[in-house]
């Protein structure tokens, strides 16, 4: 791997897997319902995904591959892609435990060793969508998709990034603009990880340049009974009732 960024993210995710995602994997895999984000909003209320039965699906930055498992269970032919060996190892253990096998490929979202035009749906849920360089992973997703194929990706909202305190990155997001929007893209966190976040206008231009038609931007509102996520607790539910903390983009390859 030539670029230093993904290595840092692999290091950070190896540590996070040991601390949390490995032990969270069984319950995530066991979940029947497809849900989005820290407040577990059901896909049946969102309706952003197509019927995946019989579709070729690639998940970019699958982690422990629970989302891939949800789609495989619904009849999709899924390939999970992730750069972190420890997470793929957890995914493999889950595959055996749940008797649900699909290919897992160790690679970064920026550089996927799979053929052009081989998927109907490219999906990323807090995966490549935030941990890979958008200038590289979005064109890569376009390459992997067949014409008419869908790209669906999930990330924190731009507004949540702007409202994240600068001096204490562990602190919850606030009702205050703390970071500038102009120039935002790359965030280096104290655990060494590097997160990417383009504002809406930049993202729309990048999607168009990469050959996508923009179909939807779903800014998620926390449900009334939302509770703080036990691990990812930087979003107060009352904040996310008023402002979008997370967002889903849907784009179609022209």
């Amino acid at each position, binding site marked *: 791997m030539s670029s230093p960024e993904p290595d840092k993210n692999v290091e950070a995710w190896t540590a996070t897997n040991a601390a949390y995602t490995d032990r969270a994997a069984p319950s995530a895999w066991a979940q029947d319902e497809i849900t989005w984000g820290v407040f577990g909003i059901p896909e049946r209320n969102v309706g952003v995904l197509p019927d995946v039965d019989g579709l070729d699906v690639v998940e970019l930055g699958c982690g422990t591959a629970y989302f891939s498992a949800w789609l495989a269970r619904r009849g999709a032919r899924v390939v999970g892609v992730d750069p972190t060996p420890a997470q793929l190892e957890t995914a493999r253990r889950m595959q055996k435990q749940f008797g649900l096998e699909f290919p897992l490929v160790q690679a970064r979202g920026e550089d996927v060793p799979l053929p052009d035009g081989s998927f109907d749906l490219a999906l990323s849920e807090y995966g490549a969508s935030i941990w890979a360089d958008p200038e590289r992973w979005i064109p890569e997703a376009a390459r992997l998709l067949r014409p008419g194929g869908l790209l669906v990706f999930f990330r924190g909202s731009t507004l949540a990034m702007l409202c994240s305190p600068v001096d204490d990155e562990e602190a919850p997001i606030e009702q*205050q*603009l703390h970071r500038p929007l*102009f120039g935002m893209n790359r965030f280096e966190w104290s655990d060494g990880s590097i997160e990417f976040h383009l504002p809406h*206008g930049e993202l729309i*231009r990048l999607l168009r340049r990469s050959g996508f038609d923009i179909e*939807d931007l779903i*800014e998620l509102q926390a449900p009334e009974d939302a509770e703080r996520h036990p691990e990812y607790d930087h979003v107060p539910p009352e904040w996310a009732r008023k402002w979008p903390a997370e967002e889903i983009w849907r784009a179609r390859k022209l």
Partner: protein
Amino acid sequence: MTLTEHAKRNRAHWTELAPSYAMASGWAREPNWGCWGIPDSDLHLLDDVSGKDVLELGCGTAYVSSWLARRGARVVALDVTPAQLETARRKQAEFGIEFELVEASAESIPSRDESFDLVVSEFGASIWCDPYLWVPEAARVLRPGGRLVFLVNGAISMLCYPDEPGPAGTELLRPYFGMHRVEWSFEDSVEFHLPHGDWIRLLRSNGLDVLDLVELRAPDGAPDPTFDYATTEWARKWPAEEIWVARKRS
């Protein structure tokens, strides 16, 4: 002409404001965007209009239309406020630039289907009309392949205005979800602002593909603008103004 209740209120509001816009100094300027006057020669949103049929929605004193007419477009400029159109007519005579001025609301455009190549709105219908009424009308009068370009306040900036005259701060003062109709306690007018996701869905559902969202940044070192909705310092960090560009599906 049947007007919605908010269109009547906005016409009264703009009738009152019209004398202070009577200079219409925009007529003498080069094409530019927003209160920091970002040149269109940087953004290229009004290029290639020569010989095109162009409609401006909520033209006010019609300075944007004058730029387009000067570039060779066949322009129709529409506004609901007679006093503003009066200023536009005076400027036409002064500059020797003639184009059609129509008194109407963009919520009900008196034009045939598919009769324009470009529909533009610069803080006109784009914020003073209900988007769920004017966007379908804009889509109707556009030819397939025609463009819609409109300037609005930045969605984030709308969260940061106190309910009193003065610039945006950094605190989020009102919710984003449900943002649509905005009324200020200090002004008898009705504005309309949508979250980004709602704009995208509204444009798409009217057969318009989203081509761009240009989030405008104030130029470094620019003086604070005459309009007091954001300081230059604020607008160096966050978009106080943004331009949507869409194209009618062929």
